[in-house]
């Protein structure tokens, strides 16, 4: 772990994009109710264009490459792309729903030296999982795909996004992952769509659900440590970075758009028109993201959670201000620790002074 921290620190000081996430397509064989993408092809990069981008990423020093979508295997050239990436010695992680993985694909993934495969599973119950993906039989096929990957001794991480429709199934998916020999990751965050449409946020679980997950030792490990009060905010925290987006990591869409992160859809340039390294080093948007320190955040800089909050600058950006709070992360910090955040206080104050607003849902009870 120490060597990984040194690697990150070195990449940061050298300005190297250590990790890049490339979505090779937004097309998908599932239609998950909470998905932040549209699934039409608006002109994906060709095989040659993607290979050229991979050459550029390798030259820029990228080490960790996540290939995802949409469903990455919807591209007929998916394995040609993966093979090319591996020939450039990237550490490759695949994100897939595993529906299209048969023995042949599992063998090939193994042979190509893929480090990890992340598979989305929403429920251990077919009627719940399939209702979310809108693909009948998808859970059965996903589990079969995971079994084939595990039979090749591949590392599989089951990502469990929790929503209203599967709020009760975290434990079931965790046990399923255990049975499959896969790692389990819980994620109670539903993000707005890339175009800013927030309609999918209706699927978000509420604070009580998140509180339940965060206080369940089977899901988070050491609850006392996970839910510990925030660390005192000192100068090193105030001078710290909000997250790695734009500093050691970024995202490239199937159309060549470069963002600081997949959850941070501010277009910094397009690799069809500019060299990746020029976008990375000189994009005004990337440099603006890069210039922000915790002390520069409008509300969060004065928050007691500043040193331990999982604040996502991309979610804050989609709420209207990349320097502002992310309400979803405020909620998480609050239910984790029971301590109110500066963002919650600001919203409460704003709501109480704004004329003409009608409260349509009771505010969460707040007790410090």
């Amino acid at each position, binding site marked *: 772990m120490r*060597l*990984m921290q040194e*690697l990150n620190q*070195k*990449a940061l000081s*050298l300005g*190297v994009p*250590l990790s890049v996430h490339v979505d090779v397509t937004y097309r998908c064989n599932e239609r998950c109710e909470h998905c932040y993408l549209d699934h039409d092809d608006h002109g994906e990069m060709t095989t040659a264009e993607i290979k050229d981008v991979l050459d550029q990423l*390798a030259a820029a*020093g*990228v*080490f*960790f490459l996540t290939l995802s979508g949409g469903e990455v295997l919807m591209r007929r050239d998916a394995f040609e792309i993966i093979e090319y990436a*591996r020939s450039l*010695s*990237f*550490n*490759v992680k695949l994100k897939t729903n595993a529906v299209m993985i048969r023995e042949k694909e599992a063998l090939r993934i193994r*042979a*190509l*030296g*893929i*480090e*990890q495969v992340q598979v989305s599973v929403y429920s251990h119950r077919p009627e719940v999982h399939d209702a979310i993906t809108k693909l009948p039989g998808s859970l059965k096929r996903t589990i079969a795909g995971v079994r084939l990957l595990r039979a090749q001794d591949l*590392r599989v991480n089951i990502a469990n996004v929790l929503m209203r429709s599967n709020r009760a199934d975290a434990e079931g998916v965790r046990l399923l992952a255990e049975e499959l020999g896969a790692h389990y990751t819980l994620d109670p965050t539903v993000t707005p769509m890339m175009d800013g449409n927030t309609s999918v946020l209706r699927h978000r679980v509420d604070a009580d659900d998140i509180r339940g997950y965060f206080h369940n030792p089977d899901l988070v490990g050491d609850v006392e440590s996970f839910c510990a009060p925030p660390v005192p905010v000192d100068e090193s925290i105030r001078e710290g970075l909000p997250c790695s987006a734009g500093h050691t990591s970024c995202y490239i869409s199937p159309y060549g758009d470069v963002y600081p992160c997949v959850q941070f859809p501010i277009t910094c340039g397009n690799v069809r028109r500019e060299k990746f390294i020029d976008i990375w080093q000189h994009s005004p948007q990337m440099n603006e993201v890069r210039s922000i320190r915790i002390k520069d955040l409008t509300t969060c800089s004065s928050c007691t959670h500043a040193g331990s909050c999982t604040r996502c600058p991309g979610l804050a950006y989609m709420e209207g201000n990349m320097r502002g709070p992310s309400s979803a992360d405020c909620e998480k910090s609050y239910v984790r620790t029971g301590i109110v955040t500066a963002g919650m206080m600001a919203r409460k104050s704003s709501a109480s002074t704004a004329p003409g607003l009608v409260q349509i849902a009771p505010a969460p009870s707040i007790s410090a």
Partner: protein
Amino acid sequence: MSEKYVARSKAVAARVLGGEMMIMSAKDSTLFSLSDVATVIWEAADGRTPLSEIVERRVCAEFDVPANVAYQDAEKLVEELATRGILSVSSQPFAEVERSGSEAP
């Protein structure tokens, strides 16, 4: 002295960062940082060039070290890298190993 051939493992990722070769094993996600000498050997490990030639032409040329000492150190190094799954070591060139269908020892 029996000749040795070394080949980079296909199950690792590698990148030079700030002049330092970083290697990560896909098998267990272990991260390694290679020394300068190990980096030279890693980069030259094409499975066809004998280790003795790599040492003579690359290691001795770049580092001020006698050939016999360099070779002994290189042998130990490649065995260690092999145990960590970063390199494969064989007594015959890897193209022949692959053609015969046998595993490297």
